[in-house]
């Protein structure tokens, strides 16, 4: 049986205590909410922290509430709760969809939005047991000194494999981080960086507490996930798209974000330039799909070949946009 390495478990019951605890133990400590990402990684000895700080007792991280038109989602909201919540379903269907496609039902019952946003980057040279990695000779991300995907390079190419990150970025969400120096709120997009090892800008002593979604205000959004099986699998491509149409049918706001093709979610900024002020015609869709395709550079470290995954960017972007161009189902017309 694969077992966890020994650790001490700390379960602070207030956020300020949690922040202090984290500061006290520093790099020896990790945070855990649902544990669906952390514990498998620990069992494979990708991490062996001395202290594990549980966040489940912190009431401050729970719940979905409205605040001045914004939707504030506690970081410890489970993915099941998030995907079933009437407010996310009505205003941000992309987020409800993405949360509902993560892993499998028993994992979504404990996995949290915060956990999914902070999901460790993945690579099929890295998400392996200690024995396997030893046989390989380890890798840059853990215990080794060379990247097995692109040997010779100096960086790690592990893949951002969160379903929710591309969506919250596409929705212009902000995330709240609480650390020893207080609270800061940054755009969700700024939470990530293009590095398979240091993939978050969050300081180690900060806790992600909430995700703040600005008013939907007529925004249409969707998320498409590519993977081999109907469930369980991580994305090998995620496409999050959000559009707002002016009354005359022209696109007035556009966001397109790709997941699972790089070490961070990739915002297709060209999409905005192409789309805004245009009708969502097949030619426009094709142009955006082409722009996304050009930008995507998946590597050979996930399921399926990188060449096919790259081709799928074009297809999935086009399908996502086409879906947003269709007449909206009734539930999307709820006032935000």
């Amino acid at each position, binding site marked *: *049986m694969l077992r966890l390495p020994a650790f001490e478990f700390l379960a602070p019951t207030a956020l300020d205590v949690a922040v202090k605890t984290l500061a006290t133990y520093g790099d020896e400590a990790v945070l855990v909410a649902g544990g669906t990402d952390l514990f498998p990684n620990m069992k494979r000895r990708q991490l062996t922290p001395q202290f594990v700080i549980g966040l489940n007792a912190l009431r401050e991280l729970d719940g979905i509430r409205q605040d001045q038109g914004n939707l504030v989602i506690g970081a410890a909201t489970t993915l099941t709760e998030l995907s079933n919540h009437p407010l996310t379903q009505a205003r941000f269907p992309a987020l409800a969809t993405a949360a509902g496609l993560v892993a499998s039902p028993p994992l979504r019952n404990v996995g949290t939005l915060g956990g999914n946003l902070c999901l460790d980057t993945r690579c*099929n040279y890295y998400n392996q047991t200690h024995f396997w990695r030893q046989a390989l000779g380890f890798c840059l991300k853990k215990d080794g000194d060379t990247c097995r995907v692109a040997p010779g390079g100096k960086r790690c190419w592990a893949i951002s494999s969160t379903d929710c990150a591309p969506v919250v970025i596409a929705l212009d969400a902000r995330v709240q981080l609480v650390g020893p120096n207080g609270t800061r709120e940054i755009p969700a997009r700024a939470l990530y960086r293009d590095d398979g090892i240091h993939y978050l800008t969050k300081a180690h002593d900060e806790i992600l507490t909430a995700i703040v979604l600005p008013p939907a205000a007529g925004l249409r959004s969707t998320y498409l996930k590519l993977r081999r099986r*109907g469930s369980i699998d991580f994305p090998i491509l995620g496409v999050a798209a959000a559009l707002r149409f002016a009354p005359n049918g022209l696109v007035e706001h556009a966001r397109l974000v790709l997941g699972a093709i790089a070490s961070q979610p990739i915002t297709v900024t060209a999409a905005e330039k192409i789309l805004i002020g245009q009708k969502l015609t097949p030619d426009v869709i094709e142009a955006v799909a082409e722009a996304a395709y050009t930008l995507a550079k998946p590597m050979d470290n996930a399921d*399926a070949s990188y060449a096919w995954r790259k081709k799928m960017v074009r297809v999935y972007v086009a399908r996502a946009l086409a879906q947003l161009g269709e007449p909206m189902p009734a539930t999307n017309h709820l006032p935000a």
Partner: protein
Amino acid sequence: MPHNDTFSIIGHALPTIEAHAKVTGEVRYADDLTLPRMLYGKLLRSVYPHARILHLDTSRAEKLPGVFAVITGKDLPIKYGIMPSSQDEEALCIERVRFVGDPVAAVAAIDEETANRALALIEVEYAPLAPVMSIRDALDERLPQLHDYADHHNIHKFVSLEFGDIEAGFQAAEYIREDTFFYEGNTHLPLEQHAALAQFSSDGKLTLWSSTQAPHYVHRALEKTLQIPRARIRVIAAPVGGGFGGKADPLAHEIAACKLAMLTGRPVKITLTREEVFYTHRGRHPVLMWIKSGVKRDGQITALHFKTILDGGAYGSYGIATTYYSGALQTVTYKIPAYKFEGMRVFTNKPPCGPKRGHGTPQPRFGFEVHLDKIAHDLGLDPAEMRRRYVVEDGTQTVNHLTITSCGLRECIDRVVEASGWKNWQAVGKRQEVENLSRGTQHAARRRGLGLACSSYLSGAGLPIYWNDLPHSGVIVKVDRGGGVAVFCGSTDIGQGSNSLLAYLVAEELGLRPADIQVFTADTDLTPVDLGSYSSRVTVMTGNACLQATRQIKQKILQAAAEKLLVPAESLSMRKGIVICEDDEQRQLSFVQAVNLAEAKFGTLSSTGSYTPPKRAGPFKGSGVGPSPSYSYTACVAAVVVDTETGEVKVEKLWLAHDGGRALNPQLVIGQAEGGAYMGVGEALMEESAFRRGMLKIPSLLDYKSPTTLDTPAIQTILVETLDPEGPYGAKEAGQGPLLPVPPAIANAVFDAIGVRIDQVPITPELVLRALEEKAKGNAPRVGPKDFPNVKYPNPIKVEPPTNAPRLGV
């Protein structure tokens, strides 16, 4: 046969006898067992695909507190293996490791964590050798040889056989077609990870509980490797949490657990991790195939020439048999007057391949059935009609000396054709567009297609692994004066319901309910030998032995009852717990009364039954693989939807008609058919043993893609119950055959949907897309192996066909 040929148990959809224990969690699988003072064992495994062991130092591990024993290959120097002719495995490698995961040492410690720490303290110095990682590598004589005993360098085994006049067959053909195919390896992936618990008592007796499908062969291997007489070894197969062939070899962890128990005087349990299950493997051989057929214009086959190369991995396992099986059963579906088979198995530095569900036959069946579909298309024939016309006949033999006792294949084809609406589809619906995905300048769509394929499989191997004249299955029945009946048999229930089969047969014969029958199986101390749950042998072989034993004891009971009731024994029957005179129903006794009379008359009531298959091997070397008491038949139609933009294939539905003889319990037969079909879908679309840098790329349940509920199609199973003369009440097999037609039916359906041929499995989206791209460029609309290596097979053994085999021009 029972009175009026009506059955109270047989043919009814009954639950299995363990069903309640399984739904309550009471079943104790091997890893659920613990014993007082039990230690935990772990194996240290090679980190190199191919290397010499230069130095191995266990001293630091031995000193770790909580460690009770550390063993290496020196402690287990005797080689073993399932086949007598390939005794090439060491429980712990002595001088050489041959794949990443090959065991080199083992420890027993107070708990699993200590055992793992001890493994980390064992120092092994390796001298790496060049790894041999593919069929092409194995044919490259510049690379090192894995085993000295191979037929030639890394070619483990050559087979070359020719039946009938192959040249005349091709000359008589009106159309000849050649194809090459590749079937990727895959693994069983039973949900239960293997576990073994060994106990050695101070009086020198060894007991092993193991998740094994073949306790008899484990028994033999323990005797050999531990040098203890079998009389002092007891092997008990714990309930098996899925086998599919992956628990049919004697395995290193079983031997190591025993040795550690002997050295420490304490029980030792070794439970493999999921990753270790991948290394233990014995899964589907990757097979490269070349096929050439000659046919008449109506599709009648005049000659078949078939070549295979099997990638066997690092050890022999069942591989010699697998090599023969990759050719032997090509002849049992359609009439073939001339057949040449050339096969070989190579060694590579990968976990050893062995017998997975369908043992060696899904790969050639895939190639053959796709090849036939192409021929039908080339000749403008309906693939279903072309096949049904030339189905083999009952009571004939094949050109390679296999005896067809019953064949319901034609009816199977008719039934799936009817159920799936095949004919209407052929007439009007071809390449149906399900959904138009058009956008921009591209035309894209999801398209539906139907494909058909057929197959056949053994009801048990006609010859034992160790050639001898002993029965393949033995059963003891004991009747208690309280009315309880106990049945003892070495057969192993791996979820297919073989324990229940024993209860059903005894209950049917004695007029009781299955709950009245106590079943004791798979325990080498208590039960007579049954060779194990492999080759779909249990229903026919165990069933026949069980009937023989039961009918003997039944005669004694009836004889005693007849004396009491003053009627001839022949007038009595047993039903609903009574012994009753059919001519005078007033004359009856309860079963308990009758049993007491019989025990008073004959003494303690017990009987034995044995089954040895009919001796039908042909007159040539290599004829031992292929013969069986009977063959099952299956036809399958698959409906797929192909997304032409992504290449993704979704199987919407499978129609499966299976001739498994009489269905002793139709619910269990359908369960086997559905499970086999499911596994076929996995192999066709997503399961694959992929390697990279000398290592299994993805040894996990996340990355090895086992279909979920959402990936599994609806399966409609139709039972075609021929009554086979060889089987108990006419039964044949169901456990393996229904997998076989599924991958080719899916491949043929993909062609029907989008007009491209995927000549390899798994049929991944990228292959489909690549084929569509080739088609768009005007190239051959196909992906698959480009050629077949130019290897020289030995001159074939030429064999005269039997007189009642299909003949050219008849």
